[in-house]
């Protein structure tokens, strides 16, 4: 009797904490979304309205009217397509090399690769800026795309963890059958690895979509702005029009949110592979 009562009590406490936590987690998003449909006059009501009494959907239309956000969307998408394809494929190549092929120094090189995760982005920022400037790549998307074709340590690591679990027999059978290493990789290994390719592609997409520092440094022309630069510019023009700014923020988050809701299982798998088995 007492144990079941204690059990009930602990259940109530657990669900209570979970519910309060969920409310806290959702509150900022709720605030952003409701503000995004409020007319300007209602944004500065005191006390603030948690549930809007009037709706102004035109905030969303205004975002596109004030700045060419459609264009910013396409710009970012263009970078994303190349950068995602580049880093997914090049990281897979390198991951396969480290996971399945034996060559002298492979362990040491792999550790070196992991070690480079410790090097801050900032440390190589100035030389890279100067390099791209010398190439005449400023104000082009090349600095945001080209580096992704050289493999990304974290994605290489994810691929390697996955490839290592593919039995060697697949590899060896294909090679004995006269498939070269390249064809084995393309025809046998890669098709078996769609789950991890998806995970890497999702991460890479989110990374490109939300990158702010890169575009901030390399892109100056208004036409070439990415979505992040676009919202930042909108904020510079309309500092206090929070309905508008929140509408723009919601728009910018839409792709990430859609990907999350459709592919969250895969994303969670990826986190688990990288974090637990690391």
């Amino acid at each position, binding site marked *: 009797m007492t144990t079941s009562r204690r059990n009930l009590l602990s259940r109530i406490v657990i669900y209570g904490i979970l519910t309060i936590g969920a409310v806290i987690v959702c509150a900022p998003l709720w605030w*952003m979304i409701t*503000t995004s449909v409020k007319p300007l006059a209602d944004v500065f009501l005191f006390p*603030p309205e948690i549930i809007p009494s009037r709706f102004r959907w035109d905030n969303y239309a205004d975002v596109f009217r004030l700045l060419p956000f459609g264009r910013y969307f396409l710009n970012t998408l263009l970078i994303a397509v190349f950068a995602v394809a580049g880093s997914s494929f090049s990281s897979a190549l390198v991951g396969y*090399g480290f996971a399945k092929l034996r060559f002298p120094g492979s362990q040491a090189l792999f550790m070196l690769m992991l070690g480079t995760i410790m090097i801050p982005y*900032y440390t190589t920022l100035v030389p890279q800026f100067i390099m791209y400037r010398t190439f005449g790549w400023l104000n082009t998307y090349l600095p945001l795309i080209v580096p992704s074709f050289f493999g990304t340590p974290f994605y290489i690591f994810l691929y390697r963890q996955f490839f290592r679990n593919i039995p060697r027999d697949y590899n060896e059978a294909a090679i004995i059958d006269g498939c070269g290493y390249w064809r084995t990789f393309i025809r046998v290994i890669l098709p078996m690895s769609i789950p991890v390719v998806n995970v890497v592609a999702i991460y890479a997409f989110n990374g490109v979509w939300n990158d*702010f520092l890169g575009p901030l*440094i390399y892109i100056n022309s208004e036409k070439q702005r990415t979505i992040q630069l676009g919202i930042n510019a909108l904020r510079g023009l309309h500092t206090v029009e929070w309905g508008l700014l929140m509408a723009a923020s919601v728009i910018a988050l839409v792709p990430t949110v859609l990907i999350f809701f459709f592919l969250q299982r895969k994303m969670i798998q990826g986190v*688990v592979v990288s974090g*637990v088995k690391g």
Partner: protein
Amino acid sequence: MTAMGKLEKREALAGYLFILPWVCGFLVFVLFSLVMAFYTSLTDWNLLSPARWVGFANYNAVLHDDLFWKSLRVTLIYVCTSVPLGIALGFSMALLLNQKVRGLSFWRLVYYFPAVLSGVAVSLMWIWVFNPDFGIVNLALSLFGIPGPGWIADTHWALPSIVVMSLWGAGGGMIIYLAGLQGIPTELYEAAQIDGASVWKKFSFITVPMMTPVIFFNLIMGAISGFQVFTEAYVITGGGPDNATLMYGLYLYMNAFKYFKMGYASALAWILFLIILAITSLLFATSRRWVFYADGGDRS
């Protein structure tokens, strides 16, 4: 040199070819860039006139720069609060969700969701959430009769505000801890049960030790990324008020791309690299004492 068979040679050659993209990237984007950053740090260069050799003058100037020390202090406080608090919060949430709760995938979804959101949009959202007069945080506090502070507009509260923001994403770690908890062999708990161990004993002698590798992984990654926070500081506070949120990355960015002091920024960049190297080495050194590897130390 041991003679390699023909097949082994072919395999080794293929191996080098497969990792070639990374090797090229490493040589250009890491090795060459590190050397160039160091060389630049020994010069005075504003991009317009030719670089002038100044030896270690930039490093000397950095050490006498109040803003450098301020930004280092701000960043260290940020890392030393947001990383441990994030781990504690994520771990606690994972423990809760591991209590055979109903609707696990729903709760997991809700808590994990914020971790995938980032960028300028999220930073703008927080400016509005933390607005002292019209924001939801102070509205919520006022319901309990607490007068809220000025948050991002207040020198004392600006940095804690950014820490709170970072904790909003603690669900990312939670996912990892939850998977780790579910991977702990149940035999361990059963054996402890037979020995009559209390809940607390089971937690501190089984759960925590089994989770230390995962915690360690999150600690390292959290510290490395914590030192590189940029968007939040740039968008939300611009480093203010009164440099209270002058994150290291922001200060470096300003030196390089606002004042065009490329040499000085490169000196800052190398110092940051050395700091991160020192901190991760320190963490690895202490890990021998507290991180427990069930498989006897194979850390691959």
